[in-house]
């Protein structure tokens, strides 16, 4: 079973209980008062007014189905667990920051001011899920704007809500296809593009882009190796043959010493 979140911005009142619960659970410093993701903010509640409508929406790790961070990490420090969360193994990380570069949602953050830094991001409270619980933010949410559950069931709930309140929702479930699908799904009264979420040319999973090239490596090595060796052999042979003076019909057999 793969878990996920359904975030419904029409239900969110912007109380920030999820942010507080997240800080507590992850023992994050509260000194970062900005509303941007950072090493001290694994999730933030943002606010935007669109045609006189106050919309509160969350930003957090989307826990992609085919995560870019998992694919790019040279030491496999990221892992997509069967339960859904994308988790990070700090003991493997060398701090190359390719995950930060590559993440299509700009989620992983780096401890720039530590001598021995690590990457930080939301792990969907993996330990709590393993113990049968639910993530801290979903537990803290008073309005069920953040709903935790089985991803397939959440998709059904989202469809139901959109179907039942056609005038209230923009008919689109964000996260079904984005970046190859994410465990976090978002529905809203407006198109998520208006809230700054990426949508255009954003439906395919990113790891495919590099894998298309990476999978050719064995071919390059075998073909290239044989080709180069053959080339050397032919050229070398011809040079050797040229060195032998042609004398009649004798076949030049050069002996190797």
């Amino acid at each position, binding site marked *: 079973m793969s878990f996920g979140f359904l975030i419904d911005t029409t239900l969110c009142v912007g109380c920030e209980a999820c942010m507080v619960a997240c800080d507590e659970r992850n023992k994050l410093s509260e000194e970062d008062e900005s509303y941007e993701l*950072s090493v001290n903010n694994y999730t933030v509640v943002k606010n935007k007014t669109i045609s006189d409508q106050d919309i509160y929406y969350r930003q957090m790790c989307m826990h992609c189905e085919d995560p*870019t961070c*998992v*694919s*790019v*990490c*040279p*030491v*496999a*420090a990221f892992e997509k667990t069967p339960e859904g969360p994308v988790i990070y193994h700090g003991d*493997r*990380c*060398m*701090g*190359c*920051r*390719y995950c*930060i*570069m*590559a993440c*299509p949602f*700009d989620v992983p*953050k*780096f*401890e*720039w*001011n*530590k*001598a*021995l*830094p*690590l990457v930080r991001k939301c792990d969907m409270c993996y330990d709590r899920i393993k113990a049968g619980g639910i993530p801290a933010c979903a537990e803290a949410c008073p309005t069920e704007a953040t709903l935790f559950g089985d991803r397939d069931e959440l998709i059904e709930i989202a469809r139901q809500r959109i179907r039942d309140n056609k005038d209230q929702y923009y008919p689109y479930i964000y996260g079904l296809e984005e970046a190859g699908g994410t465990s976090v799904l978002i529905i809203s009264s407006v198109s998520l593009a208006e809230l700054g979420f*990426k949508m255009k*040319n*954003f439906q395919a999973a*990113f*790891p495919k*882009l*590099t*894998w298309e*090239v*990476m999978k050719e*490596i064995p071919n*390059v*090595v075998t073909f*290239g*190796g044989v080709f*180069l*060796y053959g*080339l*050397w052999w032919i*050229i*070398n042979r011809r*040079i050797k043959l040229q060195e032998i003076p042609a004398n009649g019909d004798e076949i030049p057999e050069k002996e190797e010493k």
Partner: protein
Amino acid sequence: MSAYSLVSRVRSELTFWKIVFFIIIALGLYSTYVRFFHGLGAATNLSDDFPWGLWIGFDVLCGVGLAAGGFTIAAVVYIFNIKRFKTIVRPAILTAFLGYLIVIIAILFDLGRPYRIWHPIIMWNPHSVMFEVGWCVMLYTTVLALEFSPVVFEKLRWSKPLKIIKNFLIPLVILGVLFSTLHQSSLGSLYLVVPEKLYPLWYSPLLPVLFFISAIAVGFAMVIFESYLSSRAFGKNLERPILSELARIVVFVLTLYLVLKLMDFARRDMWHYMFINRTETYFFWAEMLLGIIVPMIMLATPAVRRNQKALFSGVLLVIIGFVMNRLNVAITGMESYAAADYFPSWMEISVTMMVVALGFAAFRMAVKHLPIFEREKPAAIPFTKPVKVKFMTESDKTEKILN
């Protein structure tokens, strides 16, 4: 000019460069201290918005590319068996070897936890381009060390290991070409995963191919460049016909690159990006005109190839164009997405300068103490005067000089 003033001039020039060298090292060491004791944030202008900067863009991307002469010349001499290039194979391999050492040092600066640099050896992720680059750099540096080892063995007069290594030379060179092909292109593949972040003038599905081809061009250009510099610094003779021939190869490879780049633009219909009034466009045109088209025309002209200084400026443009390309991919092309206005801090620059300066110093030391350049022939062929070399044997030349 009297002998005295000449000597004093040489001496003052020497001390000037020594002072510059020590200032660079001192600043670099201070930055090293800040970086390792106070973190990357204190030493660099990097941030979560702009996680890769000068150290990746210049030290790694350019360092690896500029060292490409090692595998191309080795392939020309040992696989294609074109023996007349043999005189430049040692300096080319030395440059490559030092280049890769520089890259590895730079990576140690850039990694958040450099003491874990060995992790990819046992923690595998074959899907990761970075994993592959790491392995290739590791293996290729080993190959380069082995390819370079005969020089050291010769110096030490160890004939046995010398014999062993010479038996493995061809497989070694082939491995070197394979590893280089893989990671030179993979440095471009690193950016395949960020199609919405890298500016369209530089993002292309062909990035790995473009990176590979441009590395070959600049590899040859670097060999010409350093032959020229070495001839001035160490009083060695320039192998003019060989360098001219190399310059023609550079023209060919650059043409290939340009055609591919244009085909890529045509295929994805990106022409309009070339004419938008914004910073990226200017950087792009500067890169294409100064780094590709102008040197292509220059080096294609026989008169330019015959003239030592003109040849030098031609390949210098190729190198500058290459560096611009890599910095454009790594920095210019990422600025508008990041909206972070990244420019390297003085500490980042000083570390880069220190590492490069150490590379130069190491090159000088190696040339001084190891048999890198062919031993001076009694008949030195001056650069400008054409001499019919091919009709003379070694003894003829000596005779001529003696007469």
